[in-house]
């Protein structure tokens, strides 16, 4: 089955308009998996990630001490006023919607909060990473098609 990017775009649009949160479509060798509210929604995590607390299986005896997630000391500081866009998961970082296409953004690009900056793929599940703020892309730190860790800085954006 041959599908153009346009066809896929149409499928995604249809699903987006539907009442479903997640759709898996398989026709022969062709598989598409679309999820509306993937973890990738929380794309922008400026210092101190809002930790989703685990649901305790039993009432916790006392509030557990909170520790900020430690970041590697070697991590370079973002330029003044810039926001760090971190990867919300471990996976493969892609700058473009598909190989051979133009990257979503380049350094200097103006973005608004809802713009997709890149994709992080885990086992064929592609998560769109949104800008989260309006501003200018000042640096792209991750390398295309390389593995990125959970919480790894991907880009810096200077907000408007």
């Amino acid at each position, binding site marked *: 089955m041959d599908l153009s990017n346009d066809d896929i775009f149409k499928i995604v649009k249809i699903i987006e308009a539907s009442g479903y949160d997640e759709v898996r479509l398989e026709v022969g060798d062709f598989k598409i998996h679309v999820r509306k509210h993937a973890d990738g929604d929380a794309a922008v995590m400026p210092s101190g*990630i809002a930790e989703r*607390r685990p649901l305790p299986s039993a009432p916790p005896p006392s509030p557990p*001490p909170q520790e900020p997630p430690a970041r*590697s000391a070697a991590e370079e500081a973002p330029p003044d006023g810039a926001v760090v866009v971190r990867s919300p998961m*471990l996976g*493969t970082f892609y700058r473009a919607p598909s190989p051979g296409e133009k990257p979503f953004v380049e350094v200097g690009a103006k973005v608004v909060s809802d713009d997709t900056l890149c994709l992080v793929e885990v086992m064929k599940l592609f998560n769109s990473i949104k800008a989260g703020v309006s501003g200018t892309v000042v640096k792209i730190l991750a390398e295309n098609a390389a*593995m990125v860790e*959970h919480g790894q800085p991907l880009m810096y954006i200077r907000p408007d």
Partner: protein
Amino acid sequence: MAEKAGIRRIFVANRGEIAVRVIQACRKLGVEAVVGVSDADRESLAARIADRAVCIGPAPAAQSYLKMETIVVAAKGTGCDAVHPGYGFLAERAGFQRLCAEHGLTFVGPAASAIEAMGDKLQARRMAAELGIPTVPGTDHVESAQRALEFGRQAGYPFLLKASAGGGGRGMRVVRTAEEVPVAFNAASAEARAAFGDPTLYIERFIERARHVEVQVMADTLGNVIHLGERDCSTQRRHQKLIEEAPSPVLDERLRARIADAAVRLLRHAGYVSAGTVEFILDADTREFYFLEVNTRIQVEHPVTEMVTGADIVAEQIRIAEGAPLSLAQSDISIRGHAIECRINAELPEQDFMPSPGRLAEWRAPAGEGIRVDTHCYPGYFVPPFYDSMIAKLIVHGADRTSAISKLSRALAGFTVGGVQTTIPFHQAVLAHPDFAQSRVTTRWVEETFMKQGFARERAT
């Protein structure tokens, strides 16, 4: 099957002391180790000593250590050719073994089919029975409370309702009277469905005074199966082991040989590969032993076996995964002296073993001849509240049980931990108790005897 995989780099899919233990085994074998850590474990000892650490997700295990796809992507992305699952988390998920295999990663452990066959307690029990290995008298699948009542009428009370897919005491109920049957049946069934997705129950006679004896087995891909003797893990609380020792102080040579033989026969018949443990219940009154279940992973308490045999079980697991033959034959295995392990947990025994996470303001572990400490802790380490509370395993080796107990007592006295509460005083009190010294402890002794005697008072002396 026996093709040499030649493992060069292992992904350690676990945390805590076992991650450290696996990395040490990798070092010894000249294999590189990459560890996947959650946000909460970025500063862990495993992350510090591994060749590389990658962050696989946020602190909650469901979003990090239990994410099979993420771990496989992390292992492939860091150039690993094998995955060691440790214990807990994904260690006994057949689906994880399969996913690793599909992506060309060698799983350091048994095949998915063996994990499945042994994970189904009823299936494992049937296999044992076919081989003439004693199983606790009971039933196959019980469909209804009515059938459970019939069993009670014929065989008497009390009995145990157990989940076929179960483990760790979940989906298990002690039924003491006919009146308790309907409620217990529904509760156990619902718990089994919720915890394991399978409500199937079966019945076992309840053994009032039981000792827990388990046999460490190693099997390679060439069909060699050996045992490394047994461990006695009777000091438990709510099915959680607290103190383990090797050899068992209550077996005579004849019984010891019979139990080991049963374990080897079962895993040989199952075509099992890697390290595995066959657990038995020993009736302290009748001295009959019964097959309980098989654990298809490295176990927390493996060091006591290493101390008395000199074997390195984790390194052996890795060699087996490469397709190499066992480095030891059964005739090479002899049990030397006696080893005991205490699990040191960050918990408050006086307050129903409430977890006590926090920063280790002080941390001085004992050291010396015949003393081994397996831990991921260091001074200033923050014990996170997200995972199990074990912070160290203290293992000692002595010429005999009496000298091992006294060495362990001295080592516990020299173990200084500040900033969190620990089970060290609990262990000291157990070791000082005459029931422990005389091996009269059964699996319900901690709850029904020891804690009721006022452990807090003993602690003050």
